[in-house]
């Protein structure tokens, strides 16, 4: 099954870990040159950040693409270096998981709850957020489910709206829960083995 193949990939990847400022940071290097970095809270074992980086077709090093967590550059980046940037009043989309569900938060959405509709598009393997006032629209995929090739289930999806923030939750299926549990156990073991790496502890 596909869950296994992803688990295999994770296992075969080259992993480096370090503990720094209350976070367990893990770096995965996959056989195809892709890199993944994760950060877990030491106390709660929550996933704080997961980001990806892969090389462009020509071989240039790409930028880190944030999958889970908040991007650091969004806040203080100056406009000079960039040609065009979304205004700070624009909605900010980010993913922040809990133990039992995937969760997305979209800030800066000052519309009433009735405006929003969230649906699952199983054929395209994505979720769609729509607004009846045509102010916001977003198509996003749940990459965890894509990697394990699990089907999307519309009954698992729910959303709430409070203080200008739309929160969308998708209940994690059983397979994902067990996989994450296994992975975490593996990572905790990994920490023991790589503690001797001097260069990791320098920061």
């Amino acid at each position, binding site marked *: 099954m596909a869950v296994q193949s992803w688990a295999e990939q994770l296992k075969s990847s080259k992993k480096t870990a370090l503990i720094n400022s209350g976070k367990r940071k893990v770096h995965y290097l996959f056989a195809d040159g892709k890199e993944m970095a994760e950060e877990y809270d030491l106390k709660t074992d929550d996933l704080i950040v997961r980001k990806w980086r892969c090389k462009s077709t020509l071989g240039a*090093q790409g930028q880190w693409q944030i999958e889970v967590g908040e991007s650091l550059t969004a806040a203080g980046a100056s406009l000079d270096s960039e040609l065009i940037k979304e205004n700070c009043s*624009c909605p900010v989309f980010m993913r922040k998981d809990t133990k039992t569900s995937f969760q997305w938060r979209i800030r800066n959405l000052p519309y009433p709850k009735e405006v929003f509709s969230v649906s699952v598009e199983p054929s395209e393997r994505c979720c769609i957020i729509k607004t009846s006032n045509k102010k916001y629209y977003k198509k996003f995929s749940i990459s965890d489910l894509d990697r394990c090739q699990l089907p999307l289930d519309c009954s698992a999806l729910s959303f709430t709206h409070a203080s200008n923030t739309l929160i969308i939750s998708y209940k994690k299926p059983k397979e994902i829960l067990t996989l994450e549990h296994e992975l975490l156990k593996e990572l905790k073991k990994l920490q023991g083995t790589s503690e001797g790496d001097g260069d990791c502890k320098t920061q």
Partner: protein
Amino acid sequence: MAGQMATTKVPEVRDITRIERIGAHSHIRGLGLDDALEPRQVSQGMVGQLASRRAAGVILEMIKDGHIAGRAVLIAGQPGTGKTAIAMGIAQSLGPDTPFTALAGSEIFSLEMSKTEALSQAFRKAIGVRIKEETEIIEGEVVEIQIDRPATGTGAKVGKLTLKTTEMETIYDLGNKMIESLSKEKVQAGDVITIDKATGKISKLGRSFTRARDYDAMGAQTQFVQCPEGELQKRKEVVHTVSLHEIDVINSRTQGFLALFSGDTGEIKSEVREQINAKVSEWREEGKAEIIPGVLFIDEVHMLDMECFSFLNRALESDLSPVLIMATNRGITRIRGTNYQSPHGIPIDLLDRLLIIATSPYTEKETRQILKIRCEEEDVELSEEAHTVLTRIGLETSLRYAIQLISTAGLVCRKRRGTEVQVEDIKRVYSLFLDESRSSQYMKEYQDSFLFNEAQTTQMDTS
């Protein structure tokens, strides 16, 4: 309300009129051939040299065809007979998508890089690879564009752009460059545009259908398009051309793309090059990429030495080799780095691989034409007599000297508040500036009073 209207309108461009400087060959816009490759007497800035232009046209067809790699052409002729002009003409007619790299023979001698490395970099700059890459673009209909200038007139402008699709609407902050290119493109509310997020390139797709009734006066070429659907930001595959050298640079450094702009690339390892070659041919087989052999133009090719020539011999045999065009004004002379004499200062074995195009000195009529073209290019008006005098000067001294006199005479004329350059102005600058033969005449007469005249060397060794 009126204030609102004023800010939404994009102000006319006034600060970005680029002034192009006039170079020695800036009047050349092509080879001046018709469809049957027959040269026109005067066309696209080219005058005379019919046979050599025709030959260059044949070469041009071969380059455009793109099948034949590793051919070399030598343009040989006296100084000032249009060798570089022909090469520029080829470059101009190739268009922006075919790589054209020009360098002078002396450029490869550097302390930081070996000669052969400089040559291989030049070779690889002249090979283009057309490849698909995914980029992020923003596509939407302009709802509002607002650019605020600071009241003092100086300082950074602040800009905001509101874009929408059928489903959503977003406000963007604009950087200074983006403001300039938006006003250059004359983007206004109701236009449907795409912006490449990485490069900032803007393309107008047309006007939105919903704005069709806004104005009655509309250009015939105005196209109406539907407002885009879905999300504003999309990932799209675009085809672009990069040179092999650029791919080398990207892959030879960890920080990658930034190295392109820092300038200092240093030497590139041959392993990297081999890897890239293998990858490119893999892409080509998979149909992902297409190779566009371009042109490498080496001016003053007699400045290369024996090692470079033997490198060229070898490099031309590779199937990833561009069409090499060389130019020289030397006759039979010493090959640099040896004691042997050879035609054009190029070893016979390399000469054997070359197609040689000869240029011949210009006739009086042609000289007259060229001077006329240059006068237009340099914005100087010449009276009929002055033109005749200048043509005589061009024939008796050199064409380059005559061309130099155009702008200087133009200045003298302007100083005396004249509108048209007269014979007096030409005489004036002719007496002010010596040409080469008068200068050597002067030397011969006053040799004794110059410094270091004891050493009676026969001739300066420049080969």
